[in-house]
């Protein structure tokens, strides 16, 4: 596929979150996930919120921190082949606007989930573990770090 050949960015992955409408689309997706869960009559409100939080963080971890490379062939001969999507955002620049957005959204979801589960300890445990799993890889100290060689190649 001849992506990224007509303009300056050889890896289109780096600018996706900066494009017009992606933040809104992201919010709508999370909102609709929550709408589906909250409309299930067998789920209490607290459980629905915890499940929203957990599913969102799981999807975020898999898509941003586990899957590597690009779904297309880039003209830079595979520079990003071993990088996760998070590491490719904005060509590896830290603390850009998109990265801040993606860091803040799981925290906001966590606040909401904590509120609606009435701060119960079981929900606290699940939500906190889930939040940490998605916040820790976003730290700049963890850029391109692979613990125990997992997911390195």
């Amino acid at each position, binding site marked *: *596929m001849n992506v990224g050949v007509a303009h300056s960015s050889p890896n289109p992955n780096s600018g996706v979150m900066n494009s017009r409408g992606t933040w809104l689309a992201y919010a709508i997706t999370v909102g609709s996930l929550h709408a589906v869960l909250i409309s299930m009559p067998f789920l209490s409100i607290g459980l629905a919120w915890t499940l929203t939080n957990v599913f969102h963080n799981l999807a975020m971890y898999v898509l941003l921190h586990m899957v590597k490379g690009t779904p297309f062939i880039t003209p830079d*001969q*595979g520079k990003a082949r071993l990088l996760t999507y998070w590491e490719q955002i904005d060509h590896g620049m830290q*603390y850009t606007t998109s990265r801040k957005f993606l860091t803040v959204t799981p925290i906001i979801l*966590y606040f909401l989930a*904590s509120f609606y589960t009435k701060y119960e300890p079981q929900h606290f445990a699940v939500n906190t573990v889930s939040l940490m799993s998605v916040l820790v890889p976003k730290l700049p100290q963890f*850029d391109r770090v692979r613990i125990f060689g997992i997911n390195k190649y």
Partner: protein
Amino acid sequence: MAGSEQWVLVEMAQAVYEAPAYHLLLEVFLIICIIRLLFFSKSYRPLDRTQLTEAEEEELIREWQPEPLVPANPSPPYLKYHVVSGAAGKFVTVDNRECLNLSSLNFLGFLESPRIKAAALSSLRKYGVGTCGPRGFYGTFDVHLELEMKLASMMATQEAIIYAYGPSAISSAIPAYAKRGDVVFADMAVSLPLQQGLSASRSNIRWFRHNDLDHLETLLKEQAAEDKKNPKKARVVRRFVLVEGIYLNTGNVCPLPELVQLKYRYKFRIFLEESLSFGVLGDTGRGLTEHFGINVEDVDFICSTMENSLATIGGFCCGRSFVIDHQRLSGQGYCFSASLPPLLTVAALEALVMMEEKPEMFKELREQCRLLYDSVQGIPGLTVGGNPVSPVLHIRLAEPSQSRERDMATLEAIIESCAQEGVAVTLARCIEKDEVFPPPPSIRLAVNVELTQGEIHRAAVVLRSAASHHLLE
């Protein structure tokens, strides 16, 4: 209703009051993190953390040569042209002297074929000159598809792809498959377009000594040992071997059967570049695979220019559909260059038809190659590089001096004497600063199937006398 809503809100507010301290502390901590992130952090680019090994660092330090602020004058040979007037067929008029042409890589004599010229002219009247577009943008004509099908059927492969310029075929094909992190084992004597393809691929290149499959096996064993230490990495690293059928820089033939055996033992892909062997080796001119009787499917792709045997412009690449189809979107020379002009395509088609009609020409050509090889043996002061079956021979000085310029001047003097006697030969040209391993200076002889035995003998005699004149004084 309003009462129950308020009641729920009161419940919620109560839950906040009764929330455990650790939870509230964590939330306060997260709020502080958000504030710090949003208001007190500046975007920056982290330093590139590519680690070089000791060997790579030493090599970079050793390789670095400071360039002069003002570049030296380009060496005179490039300014001294031998001007050719008229067509460069069997006889060529060089510097107003008509000479027997042993320089052009016109192996099958198609350069002056009236039949090919007629076909090209009629297609010129039909299509015009150029295509004005790349293959993906209204540049695909019926003759292109015809030529691709004909090449595929002739080479007994599934598909073929045409490039508009010979060197861009191989230099686009290699980076389409080999990427960063992959390993390519390349022969040290590969010519410049292959070297450019290798550097464009950004892969790790391991050079093995020319035609030395033992050295290649040593390198493959080293790679296998590395792979064993790191099997997860080995699973994503692709391994290729790049060889030419007949090497332009040396005239030697690649030992393909042993290479195929190595392929199945050490698991790599073979890229075979057949610019000099297509239309030369094999009973019907199919190249090295036919010459050695190897199944063409054992080679992962075969690339060649059409500028030597087929005497037109362009290049092609043939192999399995799965392999070749990838180049239709990833071959940079295919996607981003205008396609081959139809008149040159039709010339190639006609040349292929002529090859099919008269397969005896390949045996004739090989006999003449053998004859030239035997005739130039034993010239005092000169050595012959090349294979008896190769249409290209390299004549080098038996005792080269330390200076490349002096050797080239000596060889130029020999060439000038040959031209005075009516035999046009040439120095093997290369851009020294672009070549990874610049070959030693040599005179390159090229055989043409139209040469008679007498003419080949005469050329050898002329070369012998010119050499004795310039070397034994």
